């Protein structure tokens, strides 16, 4: 499992990467009430805003962790955003993507580095 400074987690399975947000991120956001996901087939570039999350407090964006293409989105969380608060690391995943450059994944933070980041 890898992590980004934007508090995303990434899991690689073959050439597909599943992306969600960490428990730490959900604690910071509070109760999530709305999620706008990208569409399957969208070409995304690292750093661009691809998901909008609204919590009871405010709106925030999630950026693409690396260049690639969206292969699947979790429609269930768009219907029931509280799933992300309840199970951010499993049922509350956001989208799956195929990276343009698979080596980008290996360059991301590991769990130890992420834990250090969030203190």
């Amino acid at each position, binding site marked *: 499992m890898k992590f980004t400074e934007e508090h995303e987690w990434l899991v690689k399975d073959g050439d597909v990467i599943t992306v969600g947000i960490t428990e730490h991120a959900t604690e910071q956001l509070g109760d999530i*009430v709305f999620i706008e996901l990208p569409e399957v087939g969208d070409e995304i570039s690292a750093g661009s805003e691809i998901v909008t999350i609204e919590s*009871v407090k405010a709106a925030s964006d999630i950026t693409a962790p690396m260049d690639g293409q969206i292969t699947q989105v979790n429609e269930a969380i768009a219907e029931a955003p509280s799933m992300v608060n309840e199970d951010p690391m499993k049922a509350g995943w956001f989208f799956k993507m195929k990276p343009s450059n698979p080596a980008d994944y290996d360059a991301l933070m590991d769990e130890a580095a992420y834990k250090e980041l969030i203190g």
Partner: protein
Amino acid sequence: MSEIDPGLKRTPLHDLHIALDAKMVAFAGYAMPVQYPLGVMKEHLTTRENAGLFDVSHMGQVRITPRSGDLAEAALAMERLVPIDVLGLKNGRQRYAMFTNDAGGIQDDLMVTNAGDHLYVVVNAACKEQDLEHLRAEMDECLVDEIDAALLALQGPRSEAALATLAPEVIELGFMESREVSLLGEQCRVSRSGYSGEDGFEVSAPNRSAVALAQALLESHDVAPVGLGARDSLRLEAGLCLYGSDIDVTTSPIEAGLKWAIQRSRRAGGAREGNFPGAGRILSELEQQPQRLRVGLKPDGRAPMRHGTPLFAEVDSSEPCGRITSGGFGPSVGAPISMGYVPSEMADTGTRLFGEVRGKRLPVKVAEIPFVANTYKR
């Protein structure tokens, strides 16, 4: 997480908030709890189902005492500043009011209570210095003193039972009634009012007894501590205005849909007609519809439309016709809700408009407020 600025003022309940593991934020110069570990959503829902305890000690509490000893003098002086019937307010009764300016805008909104030998006034935290100056400048016949006391709000259907364990006589209070009550051996002022749309109380208590009082109320299983986050979503569902967002110096009380607060005696033809700042505009808007009105708004979709969202009459209109002044997710409604200003001809319930969220024009309909029926004890 960043530490809260040590320069912020603290309420008498500050250490209790920390002990309860609240997330503290800066609000109107105070360190205030925005939420506790329960979270905004559950704090909101438990207030509607049981009871929530809010620290609102940051708000300004003011005692206005007539120098002559005749409360009618203070009431008439107050009437020079607000379009409200203060003279007709009976001992132990409270009314909602607003300080207007010469242009007919709203300088602050407030609660005014006839406390027998003085008027007891509660104003917004962010406006209190300005309000005190205003009162002192305009009310020569009165002594205007800020009351240094804690203010706790206990809101929700189980509030009465929880507070009655400390003082059974609070059961006798009806909505917008107020009296002095001994709580834990200290004289407190208890008012049956609040800012959630639920039955409940506001308790002004001496600073030294605030923590013990809060702890005694929280001992009830039905009472949870609730932060500013849920306070905002509760008042939004109740259709209540937030000063600085839904009302300000540019909005008149009539545009804001607050004409119910202006009693007959202050209207055209009344016994004490006009004679408050901005009376010209406000009385004429009472006669003929103002150009715009505050309305409730319900987005068709799930995306909340928040403060500042521009509203358009058509999906392709070039200019906005209005603006959202408060908005978010309504936990009890289970959907996003907003309030905002629209031209009067677009203010009918069901009128479809478009709110622009992140560059997209999304459909939204004018809706009845309150979004959740109030449960005041009449």
